[in-house]
């Protein structure tokens, strides 16, 4: 069976890709996709730690991840709605252009 570190490495790899996407891309939708990747990396960690825990029969990890995916879905919906609203307002999805909160 694949050891825990393999899952963790995969999860870290996924997180890094998500983070890089979120940090470097200008398009708001790509940034959202990066965020979803990082969330899923976190979900993978939950599952991995649950599976290798002392009481895998309690289903706690599954519960967390299902909630997390639900929240992430809601978040994605809100995020996409925001991006559409921003696009309607600014006629762009470039996050660098969206600096009206600048001090």
């Amino acid at each position, binding site marked *: 069976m694949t050891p825990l570190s393999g899952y963790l490495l995969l999860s870290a790899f996924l997180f890094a890709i998500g983070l890089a996407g*979120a*940090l470097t891309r200008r398009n708001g939708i790509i*940034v959202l996709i990066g965020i979803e990747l990082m969330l899923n990396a976190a979900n993978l960690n939950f599952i991995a730690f649950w599976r290798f825990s002392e009481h895998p029969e309690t289903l706690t990890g599954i519960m967390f991840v299902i909630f997390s995916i639900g929240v992430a879905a809601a978040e994605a919906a809100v995020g996409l709605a925001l991006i559409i609203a921003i696009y309607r307002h600014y006629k762009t999805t470039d996050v660098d252009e969206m*600096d009206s909160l*600048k001090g």
Partner: protein
Amino acid sequence: MAWIVKNLWLIPALPILAAGFTAIAKQSARKFAATLAIGSMVLSLLLSLCAFAHALQFSGHGEETRQVFNFNWFQFGDQWLQLGWVLGPLTAVMLVMVSFVGLMIFIYSVGYMAHDENFTRFFCFLSLFAGAMLGVVIANSLLLLFISWELVGLTSYLLIGFWYHKPSASAAAKKAFITTRIGDVLFLLGMVWLYAQSGTLLFYDHGAGCLEQSALAKMVAQTTGIGMAVSTAIGLLIFAGAVGKSGQVPLHVWLPDAMEGPTPVSALIHAATMVAAGVFLVARVYPLMATHLAGAAVETTALQVITWIGAITAFFAASIAVAQNDIKRILAYSTVSQLGYMMMGLGVGGVAVGMFHLITHAFFKSLLFMGAGSVIHGCHEEQDIRHMGGLRKFMPVTFVTYAAGMLALCGFPLFFSGFWSKDEILHSAHNWPVSPWPFYLGVAGALLTAFYMMRQVCYVFFGKERLPASQSSHSHSDSHSAAAHANHSSTPHESPTVMTIPLAVLAAFAILLGFIGTPAWPWFQRFLGGKVEAGFNAGMVSLMISSSIVVFLGLGLAWWFYGRQPIEKAEAPDALEKLRPDLFGLLQNKYFIDEIYEATIIRFNAWWATVCDFLDTWVWNGAVQAISYFVLGLSWLNRLIDEYVVNLGFDEGCHGVRGGGKFMSRLQDGRVQNYLRVLGIALVVLVLILVWGWHAA
């Protein structure tokens, strides 16, 4: 006639009212002013006569010799301050004297002041004076007496300075006011002390007044720090007021200078009434002076002091009068001297003796002053007796009346009032148990009195006329005198009838008044003082003879010096001056009293004023300045702190906050990815710390 006691206030109120009306009248309302003043005086005289008659009535019955009317004035704390008036023999005779002499002088003034442009003002002041003086006389409260007393002083000041454009007159007015003030301050102290001791300022209040038995007994029993009875100390303080007003040594210096006022003023205020107010005051509070403990010395200290001061003044002023050349100044010193006699009379013989001389003196001295005024008027405002002479021919009425007054003043035997009153004083002084010296001084004064009066009469009425050719040299530079003189010839002339009639009336009184107080029929003494034995005794007769000899000696000596050969030239030196120039100079300069005061008290006062001014400028002002500079420095420091510490700190704070804000706002650039980057870096750092920490643990 009992209504008069309650309404006694009308007597002074009428002239004061007249003064009030005159004060608001126009300056040109001469006839109105004179009529009002004389009318009010006539009414006052009538009321005074009523009061006198009433006093005669009830004092004859041997019951209470005085009637009082007291009322509450105002309340302070739980005490009422009371004022009131008293009608007794003393008040009655003074009332009649003051209103009668006042009336004569008012009438005389109509003639004397006829050319003065301030005629209305003069009558206003004169009426006010008469009212105030009558107020002094009727007062039954030391406070009411003091108020009137000060009013009298004020009007005296106003009238001495009546010709205020003359610098000498305004200086004399100030001198009179300030000198009398010295006495008045002590008088006020005495009054306050009396109030503290007896709790009342009423003289007579049915047994509760301060001059009645219970209060006196209390005050006599107590002694002050220097072993003097309290009543004596208070009496001496009150006497100090009398010394100031009555021109006794050492406060006599103002009275001769007061002759700068118009002559009727000199006659009324500075001869007959105001200066006699001091004597009257002593007579009024006489019980306070004279009461002593049972079994103690016969004479109280207060009476001894009064006697000595009176005797010294009597001799001292008479000697100065010998060497004066101003007709009014001679009379002024004579007044001072006679006031000394009155004081001495009060000291040695009691109320009746002093008051008798006061009354007779008021008549003959106002007569003399008015005669002098008539002479001055007739000689075109000439006052120097060396420039008169021979006026007997030009002014017969004035001469005769003046001679009557002069003989009364000298004490010419038997027919003149001055003889009887002065002789009584000398007789009492002769019997004085303490010391014979007041008697000797009195006799010497009598000799000098006869001498200087004869000298004056020789200079003025006898000899050759010596009026200077140019008339304007010695006038008061009044605008009126020039106008008046234009109508006159240069020779002396008799005064108008309105001036000579009062002279004649007063001359009659100067002769007749003596007969109410002769030893053969001492009506006056009985009226004032109770039981007096009538009739002569051997000592009295011998004393009368010797005093007559003294008078004749004085008259004869003066005649020998000045009348034997008629004085030809005004420039000729005085006969006494040829004899003893040193002594004459000393007397002519009034013993240099003015100069001594100038060199000591006035210089000290000026020095003290300079010191005070110096203290004011440098010490007190310096202290104030220093404090204000200190405060100024403090506030300057405050401002600095405010400006550079508080303000700057605040500004810097604001600046810092603004800078911080700017820096912080630069961080918040609104780019979500930047925030995320920071988060990412922070995460890495956190992980690193955790890993490092885990390893360290």
